């Protein structure tokens, strides 16, 4: 059976949901960040797959994927910076304990 668009989309969905599950359940902030990266990757797969199968000559999906990567990079940079900043103060990266924003 030849591989088609659906395959990629299903794979993307599976990866996305694994990432989602991880992001929701994990207490370690770094792991949460990793799961978010996973989700972004899943989205990228579907973007590229659409680009390949729906508009094979336009590449718009790939351009989008590049932008998603830029966003992902920015997100990781800032996210880890925040984690480290919090960690420095609290010696702890347990997301459920970070309640500085509560009042």
């Amino acid at each position, binding site marked *: 059976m030849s591989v088609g668009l659906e395959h990629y989309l299903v794979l993307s969905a599976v990866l996305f949901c694994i990432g989602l599950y991880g992001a929701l359940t994990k207490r370690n902030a770094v792991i949460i960040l990793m799961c978010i990266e996973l989700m972004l990757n899943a989205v990228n797969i579907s973007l590229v797959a659409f680009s390949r199968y729906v508009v094979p000559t336009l590449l718009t999906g790939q351009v989008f994927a590049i932008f998603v*990567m830029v966003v992902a*990079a920015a997100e990781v*940079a800032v996210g880890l910076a925040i984690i480290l900043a919090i960690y420095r103060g609290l010696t702890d990266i347990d997301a459920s304990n970070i309640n500085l924003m509560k009042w």
Partner: protein
Amino acid sequence: MLANYGLIGLFFIIVALFSLSMPIIPIVLRYLKIVPSHPGPVKNSTFECGVETIGKTWVQFNFHYYFYALVFLAIDVLVVFLYPWAVQLRQLGLFSFFAVLVLVFIVVIGYVYAWKKKVLEWK
């Protein structure tokens, strides 16, 4: 084009097998008693100039390394844009040149900021 990547993929399989076999051969030879193996508590302990390690070995590190990685990440993303531009510069012409100039300029602001804030200095 995919044929080429097929070659690369197949080559990767060979390389993976080859490099995996390298640590595996001694293990096989060990069962043939050609490679000696006499593990012991001292032999398998950490080497630290002949004395016992003080404290734990997985230490939590100083994060000045992090800033370099940070700036690196940002600029790495920039480079992604530079490559297609570099290939096509002759066709794209002056417009793209200025586009990239602006692009680089924007990111360089961040770099200069990092320099000025002494982030690039090792402390």
